[in-house]
């Protein structure tokens, strides 16, 4: 298989300037699979900045993808603000109970301090170490939660649902607080010289209506991203899971430079609707194809994505539709990277012509 001839930074620059490049960009959204790369337990990534950095760096070196995200799970921020999180020894952490379950307790919520609270110092240390080691050749970002999602994880999805419909002011109060927390984490990340990469799972139209997205999520995402860009960060990625077709315009209006599209949505449709405004990334199915499929299926799925969106006006990055499962076989991640190498740049005409 072809080897990479450029670093991700060189490749991105060449593509931006319309110069030749060795291949299309490719980002499998790897999170805890990094533990498998260096042979540690998943929980160790969350408890040591040194270990998380070592795993993140080794994973980048192992696969050679185009953007590095320091990330373990969606629960580090909720945990730092008092939500109960269970951390199994060797599996991804998950939520046990929200920080607050009743309206009267909302006053007790305060934004986390990213330098002292929960696992956030670990995350920041890992970001710093990763940046120092490989930041010269690959963009290094750190995961930051969208305010609406953080709010749901702080008070529970049931509460935020009921409050949006019954007590919109209360919902806004919690989401505003979550905004403040995410803003502070984003600032800490930017202070290190890195950039936040924003994920807002609960904004998905699989969960809430586009109308609620416009009212309770989009304005806060926009504020957050405008703040980040105001601090000199040019590229801000935004990922929303599940169905998103009805909110792409709103997502682009946040000012994000790149939208990550889940495999429950269609890249060609996203390209038609917002491809002239934002870079798109997506959307190989992480479970059915990357976790459970064979390398040949990964390759076919990668080419299908490429065919759909390679010519998106503001750029396209071959990516997984969502974060990869921890036990995703390395062979499948390699197959995904190799598909990008095989496609090259400009994309080989025979790959564009073949039907899956």
């Amino acid at each position, binding site marked *: 298989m072809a080897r990479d001839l450029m670093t991700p930074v060189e490749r991105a620059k060449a593509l931006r300037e319309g110069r030749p490049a060795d291949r299309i960009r490719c980002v499998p959204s790897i999170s805890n699979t990094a533990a498998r790369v260096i042979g540690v337990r998943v929980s160790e990534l969350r408890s040591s900045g040194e270990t998380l950095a070592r795993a993140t760096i080794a994973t980048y070196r192992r696969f050679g993808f185009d953007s590095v995200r320091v990330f373990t799970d969606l629960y580090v921020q909720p945990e730092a603000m008092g939500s109960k999180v269970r951390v199994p020894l060797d599996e991804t952490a*998950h939520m046990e109970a929200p920080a607050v379950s009743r309206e009267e307790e909302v006053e007790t919520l305060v934004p986390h301090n990213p330098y002292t609270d929960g696992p956030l110092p670990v995350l920041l240390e890992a970001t710093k170490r990763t940046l120092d080691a490989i930041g010269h050749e690959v963009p290094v970002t750190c995961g930051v939660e969208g305010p609406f999602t953080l709010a749901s994880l702080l008070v529970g*999805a049931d509460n935020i*649902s*009921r409050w949006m419909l019954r007590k919109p002011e209360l919902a806004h109060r919690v989401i505003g607080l979550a905004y403040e927390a995410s803003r502070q984490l984003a600032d800490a990340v930017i202070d290190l010289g890195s950039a936040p990469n924003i994920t807002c799972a609960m904004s998905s*139209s699989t*969960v809430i*209506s586009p109308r*609620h997205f416009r009212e309770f999520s989009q304005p806060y995402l926009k504020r957050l991203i405008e703040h980040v860009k105001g601090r000199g960060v040019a590229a801000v990625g935004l990922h929303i899971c599940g169905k998103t077709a009805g909110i792409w315009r709103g997502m682009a209006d946040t000012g994000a430079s790149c939208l990550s599209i889940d495999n429950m949505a269609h890249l060609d449709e996203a390209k038609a609707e917002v491809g002239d405004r934002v870079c798109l990334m997506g959307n190989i199915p992480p479970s*059915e194809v990357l976790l459970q499929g064979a390398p040949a299926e990964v390759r076919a799925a990668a080419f299908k994505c490429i065919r759909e969106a390679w010519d998106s006006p503001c750029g396209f990055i071959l990516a997984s539709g969502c974060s990869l499962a921890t036990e995703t076989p390395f062979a499948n991640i390699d197959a995904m990277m190799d598909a990008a190498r095989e496609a090259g740049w400009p994309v080989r005409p025979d790959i564009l012509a073949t039907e899956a």
Partner: protein
Amino acid sequence: MSEESEALFRGLSDAVVNLEEEKAVELAAEVVKKNIDAYEAVDKGLAHGMDRAGRLFEEDEYFVPELLIAADAMYAGLDVLRPHIKADAASEPGKIVLGVVEGDTHDIGKNLVKIILEAKGFTVFDLGRDVPPGDFVKKAREVGADIIGLSTLMTTTMPGMAEVVENLRAAGLRDRIKVMIGGAPISSAFARRIGADGYSANAVEAGELAARLLAETRAAGARAVAV
């Protein structure tokens, strides 16, 4: 059925689909006061409204929050009506043991499925989240369940689903109890692979699937009796 009861049933259905909890309670109280059949009021009123809400969900008009609030209205009305339902009014309800597989605490999907199943008349035994595979089988045996429903959001817990099917087989109950599964990382291919009886992509489909599986079980049961 009198025009009066019909109007009340329609009102109850509307209250649920329009997310009006107080209205549902008020109309349910009226049903009781006027001695109208409570079971019919649930079936043609509250459950009917939940069914409409479910259809709006499938049409992308309603989303998770709207379904949750519609369910609030349904349950509030049900609380008023339940004590007045005559024991013999309903046919033997289907029994389903439901839960999120061990290793996962995401339960929004499971909770929606529960709502839809209860609206369809199922008796739901909700084991909650993070449930060890063995517990599903134990509970199913204990209550004489027709179906076990498994939900997950995390890929790590998918082997747990296969284990439930396996445990069921080992317990000699596989022929009697159907298994249905769902959740973001699940596909119908995965369901087939682990030998589950069905997969559904969302809560409303899960309701339809459960009804179908129950009908199959009962038909098979009837055949067995005839033989």
